[in-house]
């Protein structure tokens, strides 16, 4: 079975977000994505899986499945959970090298650039960094 590439997934997300002309619809969509995120196994909701630099708590776990990196996550804030769900949708079940190389420019295209700034304490930057670190570790 052919897997959808990161670029293709990014493109799908960008097209999806183009449907929203107002910020509230966009955020409602992010919140819905968060609510739909599969529940993370409880054993991973502990300190060592927390991503630093987030105002909300974000737990992120990665494991290898058939040479690809499978991510699960959770957060106690819904917007943050939606954002991590968005990242998981694009990066999960991809090859480590593709995750490491992903430029994530789609975040700018869907108008969430403000969340990339360091002053935004939702930790989007740290989430991406952590996902790439997991990919590096799994690549070995």
């Amino acid at each position, binding site marked *: 079975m052919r897997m959808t590439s990161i670029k293709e997934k990014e493109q799908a997300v960008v097209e999806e977000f183009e449907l929203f002309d107002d910020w509230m619809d966009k*955020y409602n969509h992010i919140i819905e994505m968060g609510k739909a995120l599969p529940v993370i196994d409880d054993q991973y909701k502990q300190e060592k899986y927390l991503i630093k630099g987030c105002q*909300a708590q974000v737990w992120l776990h990665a494991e290898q499945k058939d040479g690809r990196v499978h991510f699960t996550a959770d957060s106690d804030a819904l917007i943050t959970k939606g954002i991590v769900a968005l990242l998981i949708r694009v990066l999960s079940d991809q090859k480590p090298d593709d995750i490491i190389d992903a430029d994530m420019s789609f975040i700018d295209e869907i108008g969430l650039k403000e969340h990339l700034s360091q002053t935004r304490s939702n930790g989007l930057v740290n989430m991406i960094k952590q996902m790439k670190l997991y990919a590096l570790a799994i690549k070995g």
Partner: protein
Amino acid sequence: MSFSPDQLRKQFPILEREVNNRPLIYFDNAATTQKPRVVLDRLMHYYEQENSNIHRGAHFLSSQATEAYEQARKTIQQHINARHSHEVIFTRGTTEAINLVADSFCQRYLKAGDEIIISAMEHHANIVPWQMACERHQATLKVVPMRPDGTLDMTGLEALLNRRTKLVAITHVSNALGTINPVKAIISMAHQQNVPVLIDGAQATPHMAVDVTDLDCDFYCFSGHKMYGPMGVGVLYGKEAILNDMPPWQGGGEMISSVSFSKTTYNELPFKFEAGTPNVADVLGMETAILFLQETGLDRIAAHEKELVDYAINRLRQTDNIRFFGEASERSAVVSFIFNDIHPYDTGTILDKMGIAVRTGHHCAQPIMTYFNIPGTVRVSFAAYNTKKEIDVLMNGLSTVRDMFG
């Protein structure tokens, strides 16, 4: 003349701007206040007409700038009713003022086995410097407990004071809860045991008149930028005798009397504690901000802000699932709350999309959040230029938040 926030607003250029295509509503004043035109003009005037290094050259500009700088010290001395202008030390802000005392005072007085008392509601700036000092001198940090309504447990303070206590360092007003602490009673209680007291006044000076002679505090610290002045400048007030007894902190120009490679003698107060070229422009800006506060009237500002706090609390009380933090009867212009079912970060993000700036998170006071077992709060903090109409917009914003998450 009656107080009109609508008139006052016109003096603040930034309040005319939009954020996210909505008129800015700035409710993050406990983090920093906006600056009136007079302060901005003062900064520009200094660099356009007066810029020169002070206390040095014999030339016209240098002596003019020196005079302006020393006049600012006098203005501040009078504003806080200090006995001498040399008891006013310019710093980068409250944090640096506290660090100065934590280094210099502790070097002189703190010995192994001694104790320093702080409170459970301190900002990190009034926790960490003392932790560092205690570690350096093998001393112990003691913490006055807080009650659930966000007030200090005064009997707890009394119980902690003993012969080993070398200093009490307490905030005048809590930045996270708005509680106004009974600092005069605290100071007098500590003085009965001959323990000096430092007051962190960063959140007090924008909202009330502070009289250091009446309080009888040994140190009082505050920042310019929280009281309509520029960032990067603040004040350490200290009693003359104790400041004279303390060793210099940073070394450099200005703080010396004479330097040779075998021996350096130090300058007297206040210069002993002001090494290097000072932040002249921002000191002048802070002076202008203080004159602005005096002209507007701290009493009128306080009355207006109390009206805003009462109005906001009354309206917020009608919201579902809300929990307030800090319900002291004596409180400043801060309302801290969370919705039980909504993360403060979610609330803050949506309000921001509507042009409303609030602070969410732990407000640099993590022990308070641990005490209440919450990840943080939504903090709405007012200044003189805020209006009830803005609170109405906030309420609409919060009802949108409830629709989205509740």
